[in-house]
């Protein structure tokens, strides 16, 4: 369904609305913006009204598993709270750009102020439940008008939440317009893009490239593409808790997130170390895996076996060695080249001596995100600098890989800042 002026409408009505989109946006932009304080207040009311006990079962109706639903609700309660949102604004937007000063060598006062981009198109993806809501929230907090293209196979949860926000704060109905149109409807997508000042795109390379072709020169493009994360371990001994933390991340996230651990790089060029470590790591991973049972183990295990067995069939030059139990597997590799894992508890282990970090990782800089670093104190600064120069944008410890904190930059940027422009007012 589409959500226009706070009402659910058919695709036909949505298409009719799009015919006058530019005029409608001009009319709405002529009105006062919706102050972010009102948005924060509405979110806080929503956050207070949702409860793990009562709403987890509702999320189950959207096909979300109970445990995941409970986690998502408690995360939503936190991330929609007044304290959380206010802190995000303070950290991400700061007050650098709202001041008056006399520039160097000048005599007249200059006032700087921020302004919303205007109209932002959010091309969302099915990366995470209710992702369109979080993307729109960024747009509302920066006082933009938001056009949303829902992902294919959207389950309807986002519209439900946005309608609830509109019920609490009716002015949001004139700041958020949601479209459930297929990506193949290029005419509608072009209309949406033509009416926008900025385009936020979520999803894989294909979606990002499609958005790039939609955005005319000068239209700001904010790309939240797919990313890859891994662990880098250096030093003579790797402590057991480090391996346990990585194993927990792998089991909890199933290696599906952009900050999930796909594999482990060892600061060595010795393949025998890689093999010995892989065997040891599988022991830990198998043990930890038992704490995270899956209902569809038969099917996930079957897929794991097909992938691993096929790799063994293809492995005619001994470049990999597979270690496997019924719950997990580790692939020891000779090559240092970055690759995704097979997901669902199959990390790789590869050699990557520190003097090759730049050469090996930099080709992947557009897709690098988090590195869980474990090393001795003497090496830390050197390794951090090498990883950052290779393109890594977040360095953390193995226990925190998929943990997000308030005010955390998103893929190397503050997302709110991308949705604003800085205006110079000179007398």
């Amino acid at each position, binding site marked *: 369904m589409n959500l226009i002026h706070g009402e659910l409408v058919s695709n036909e009505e949505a298409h009719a609305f799009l015919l006058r989109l530019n005029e409608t946006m001009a009319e709405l932009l002529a009105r006062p913006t919706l102050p972010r304080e009102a948005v924060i207040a509405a979110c806080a009311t929503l956050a207070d009204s949702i409860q793990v006990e009562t709403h987890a079962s509702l999320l189950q109706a959207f*096909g979300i598993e109970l445990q995941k639903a409970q986690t998502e609700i408690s995360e939503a309660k936190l991330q929609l709270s007044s304290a959380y949102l206010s802190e995000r604004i303070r950290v991400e937007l700061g007050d650098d750009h709202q001041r008056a000063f006399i520039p160097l060598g000048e005599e007249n006062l200059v006032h700087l102020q921020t302004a919303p981009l205007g109209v932002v198109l959010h091309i969302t*993806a*099915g*990366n*995470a*439940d209710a992702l369109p809501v979080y993307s729109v929230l960024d747009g509302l907090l920066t006082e933009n008008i938001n056009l949303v293209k829902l992902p294919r*196979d959207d389950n309807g949860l986002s519209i439900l939440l946005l309608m609830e926000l509109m019920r609490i704060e009716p002015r949001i109905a004139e700041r958020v317009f949601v479209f459930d149109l297929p990506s193949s409807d290029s005419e509608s997508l072009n209309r949406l893009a033509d009416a926008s000042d900025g385009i936020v795109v*979520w999803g*894989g*390379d294909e979606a990002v490239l499609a958005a790039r072709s939609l955005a005319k020169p000068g239209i700001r493009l904010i790309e939240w*593409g*797919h*990313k*890859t*994360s891994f662990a880098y371990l250096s030093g003579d001994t790797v402590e057991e808790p480090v391996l346990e933390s990585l194993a927990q991340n792998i089991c909890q996230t*199933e*290696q*599906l*997130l*952009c900050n*999930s651990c*796909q594999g482990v790089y060892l600061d060595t060029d010795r393949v025998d170390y890689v093999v010995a470590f892989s065997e040891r790591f599988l022991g830990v991973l198998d043990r930890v895996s038992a704490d995270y049972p899956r209902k*569809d183990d*038969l*099917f*996930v*295990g*079957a*897929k*794991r*076996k*097909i*992938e691993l*067995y*096929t790799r063994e*069939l*293809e492995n*005619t030059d001994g470049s990999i060695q597979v270690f*496997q*139990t*019924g719950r997990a597997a580790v692939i020891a590799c000779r090559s240092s080249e*970055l*690759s*995704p894992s097979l*997901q*669902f508890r199959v990390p790789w282990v590869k050699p990557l001596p520190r003097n090759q970090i730049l050469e090996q990782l930099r*080709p*992947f*800089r*557009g*897709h690098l995100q988090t590195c869980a670093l474990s090393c001795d104190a003497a090496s830390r600064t050197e390794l951090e600098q090498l990883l950052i120069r290779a393109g890594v944008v977040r360095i953390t410890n193995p226990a925190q890989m998929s943990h997000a904190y308030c005010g955390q930059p998103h893929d190397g940027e503050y997302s709110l800042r991308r949705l604003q422009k800085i205006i110079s007012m000179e007398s």
Partner: protein
Amino acid sequence: MFQKIRLFAGKDPYVDRDGTYLSQLRENVSFHMQHCEPYSELLRVRGFHPEQLQSQYDVSRLPPLTTLYFKRNRLLSIPERKLFLRATSSGTSGNKSQIGFDLPSFLLGIAMAARLFAYHHVISLRPVHYIMLGYEPSRQSDLGAMKSAYGSTFFAPALSRTYALKATKFGYEPNPEGVKSALLKFAKAGVPVRLVGFPGYLMLLLRELEKDGVCLNLNKHSRIMLGGGWKQFTGEAVTPEQMHQLVEKLLGIPKERVHEFFSAAEHPLAYCKCKNGHFHVPAYSRVIIRDTVTMSPLPYGQPGLLNFVSPLVKSMPLVSVMTDDVAVLHTGESCGCGIQTPYFQLLGRAGAQGIQTCSATAAELAKGSGKA
């Protein structure tokens, strides 16, 4: 060759011919080992030799190749120029298998299918109108599924073929109105109709008819022939019983005249559901269900990976193929339809359902680094 024809095109496809099957299997494996170096090497490093195939218990010792392997690697046992027909697997994402057949294997496959379909009373001399719930053949595509659907329109003389997806100059276009008006016309004229294609497309059609409030009573010689996934196209999980009820109500075709087939590009044999809805294994094939960790063969009733072993094809070593399906094997007697050979029951595709991911894929990493 005579032995092979007897095995594949014998009158009763379900009569056990164990000795012939084993000798043909040995011969086929030896042929591939002699003519396909990479295949020979794969078997050699796994300690396999064709002479190990002495009894039915040895069949599982032949190392299987996976459909995934064929999607990423092309093995040929005859020169490329001798390939008579090419087909592509209908993979919903990523790589697709490029399968090629030599003429003798292809003809034997036709004879095999003819025997099997005759056994299940699908072959008829009565001319029919075909409603094809899938792609119209064209130069743009060589999908195996499309070819086998087209092939199945020769099992009764075709008066016409109406396609749900029409080939146009600009690619394929859905043709729901064309299909509906053809059905209405055939119902009115009282001529037999055969609907051929994916269950998912049939469900889409049934939902359309239901929405329009159309109930047809097609000629009693009409049939439905289905092959392929159930959930793939609609996202809705419909049980066969629910579908049969809708078919009877909206098209007037009883359950006995709805035939369901199973096949795969990498395993181009046909399996046909018996009257109790079970895929029995014909004499020219064996099914092994393998443990998802150890790959050991599992006994009847235990679910695992589905491995087919059959010596049909000479052009490629498709002799032992493990699919992406999770299945379970049951004894023939437990079915009760009269066919004595075991039957397999598909439980679903390997892998997790409805994955949400924001992690970069291999293709994305390769492209980003300029290595694709």
